Structure formats: structure tokens, C-alpha cells
């Protein structure tokens, strides 16, 4: 603690970054901060619209299907998706850690597992979207309204538009994360970072990947739990 405080004093005199991280990592942090505001704005506008409506669909009723199982299972499938994403975050930290130790094979192994987790998550999302769209839920229409005389009535259109926009934007981030991770994996396998002398690129994509996981934590709470 005291060593950090003393280096900080020196650092503010110029010549060295007062943040004690490289330019690339610092810019990744600032990008993620701006991205946090984007997702924050999405989720807050969702919350505002939801609070302004006198009726809102119950997530336990909307998200109650899982593939291959013909029964009502509230939240089971989305819990699996959450588990996959947390797991891929863990493999990413392990990849970053192996990068610190410059173990090329370890980095490649953990990074491949991270990519696999990302692809699995996207497949789950594709299933969920397909199921919802086939059930008549679109960005402008859904049948999750209150039950009148035993029949479902149209629910608030904003439900579908917010759901598809926000999970779609998050899924887009997962997809670009998978693409970037794949590019980094190719570089790891080609030995680019061994030549460079450090695996910092793995740390940078790691930051991005954890941020995607972080956003999912909030999306999960806002759409599936509340």
C-alpha cells in the first residue's frame, strides 16, 4: 500500500503514466466506461418505460422453455446461459494468468475454451430468440398481456422491442468478442506475442470479455428476475 502511494507521487511528475498501465489498457478501460453508459442508458430507458406501464409481462411466464424438454421450466434455460457466460469469464482470467507466465499452450487452451463458451452462449440466445419469435413475440407485438376470459391478450409492445434491442446489443458484443478472441488466439498460436515479449493483448481482450459478462449480469437481473 505504502509503495503504491509513493510511486503515485513520483508518477504525477510526468514521464510515466500516473495510471501505471499501458496506453492500450487505459483506452480499453475508457472505452468500456463509455460502453457502460450505452448499456446503462438502454436499461434505464427500459426501466422507465416499464415503470410507466400499469401492466408488464411476468418473466417467469415468458421465459419458461428449454430445448428438448416439453415442460414449463421458468428461468432454467437462461440460468444455463448465465452459467456458460460466467464459466467463459473464468477461462478468460485463466488465459490472462497463463499469459503473465508466458505459457503459450496454456493461453491457447483457455482462450479456445473461452471462444467455445461464447459460441455456446450465442447458440442458446439463437434458440431463445427463435422460440420467442415463433411464439409471436416481435419488436412490435407480443401475446403476454393479461388473460381475459381465458385468452391471452396483446401485451405492451415495448416489452419485445426492449428485449430484442438490449439482448441483441449484448449478443452483438458477445459475437464481436468471439471474433476478437479468435484473432488473438490465431496470434497466440503463431507466436506473435512470444516475439513481442508479452501477452498484453490477451489482457485487453480479457477486459472486454469480462465487461460483456458484467453487462449480462445486469441484463439477467433486469429482464429475467425483476
Amino acid at each position: 500500500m505504502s509503495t503504491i502511494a509513493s510511486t503515485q507521487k513520483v508518477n504525477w511528475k510526468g514521464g510515466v503514466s500516473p495510471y501505471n498501465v499501458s496506453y492500450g489498457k487505459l483506452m480499453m478501460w475508457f472505452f468500456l466506461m463509455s460502453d457502460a453508459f450505452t448499456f446503462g442508458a438502454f436499461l434505464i430507458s427500459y426501466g422507465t418505460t416499464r415503470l410507466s406501464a400499469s401492466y408488464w409481462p411476468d418473466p417467469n411466464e415468458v421465459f419458461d422453455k428449454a430445448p428438448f424438454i416439453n415442460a414449463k421450466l421458468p428461468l432454467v434455460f437462461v440460468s444455463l446461459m448465465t452459467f456458460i457466460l460466467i464459466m467463459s469469464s473464468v477461462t478468460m482470467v485463466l488465459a490472462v494468468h497463463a499469459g503473465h507466465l508466458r505459457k503459450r499452450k496454456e493461453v491457447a487452451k483457455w482462450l479456445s475454451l473461452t471462444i467455445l463458451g461464447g459460441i455456446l452462449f450465442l447458440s442458446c440466445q439463437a434458440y431463445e430468440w427463435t422460440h420467442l419469435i415463433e411464439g409471436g413475440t416481435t419488436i412490435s407485438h407480443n401475446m403476454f398481456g393479461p388473460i381475459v376470459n381465458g385468452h391471452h391478450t396483446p401485451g405492451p409492445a415495448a416489452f419485445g422491442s426492449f428485449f430484442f434491442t438490449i439482448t441483441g446489443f449484448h449478443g452483438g458484443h458477445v459475437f464481436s468478442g468471439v471474433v476478437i478472441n479468435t484473432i488473438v488466439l490465431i496470434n497466440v498460436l503463431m507466436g506473435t506475442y512470444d516475439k513481442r515479449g508479452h501477452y498484453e493483448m490477451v489482457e485487453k481482450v480479457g477486459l472486454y470479455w469480462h465487461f460483456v459478462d458484467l453487462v449480462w449480469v445486469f441484463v439477467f437481473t433486469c429482464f429475467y428476475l425483476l
Partner: protein
Amino acid sequence: MEQQATITATLEDESAHAFDSTVARIWRVFWILLIVTLVEIALATVHYFFGVPPVLLRNVIFLSLTLVKAFYIVAEFMHLRHEVKNLILSIMIPLLLFIWFITAFLTDGNSWRIDRERRAVQTEQVNPAP
């Protein structure tokens, strides 16, 4: 030559030790995240089938647990806790704006609902059903 060998051995020893403790910490965070998520799902299921706890309390618990998970992801996985204070503050202080965003917008949404419901009641009074 011998000295260098000793130094290399010590370095390897230390890195092996650091490897173990860091990996152990990573898995500890994983278990925390997993257990918190399972608690959330259990709470959602209990509320869905038995109606307890009341919605407001349930939501407060959900949001608190979400912040716990967010803390562990940012602090440990993204390593922010172990960065210098300058970086932590530069990232965290702007995010404090969210406190105002959330307060202002959710209050706005809620007041719209109250207004809408009041109007609905008034309309019924003005035009009674035939």
C-alpha cells in the same frame, strides 16, 4: 553461473507459488458468482410459486446481489481492485452519474404511471358505461 541458476530457480519457485494462489482466487470468485446466481434463481422460483418475499423486498435483494456480482467481476476478473488508485477513481467516479440517471428516470416513469392511472379513473367518472 551457479548463482544465476539459483536465481532462476527462485524465480520459477515464486511464479509457481503465485500461480497457485492466483488460480485459487479465480476459482473462489467463480464459486461466489455461481452461488449468488443460484440464490437469485432460488429466490425467483420461491417468489413465483409461493409469493414470498413481497415484490419490493425481492427486488431490493435482486439488485443488491447483482451489485455483489458486478463488484467481483470488476474487482477481481477485470483486476481493477489491484490497479493504482488513480485508475480506480478515474473509472469509478464518472459512473456515479448513474445514481442520478436512475433516480431521475425511474421517478419520471413512475409519475407517468400514476398520472395515467389517475386519468383513467377520471375518464370513467366523466363517461360512465352505458
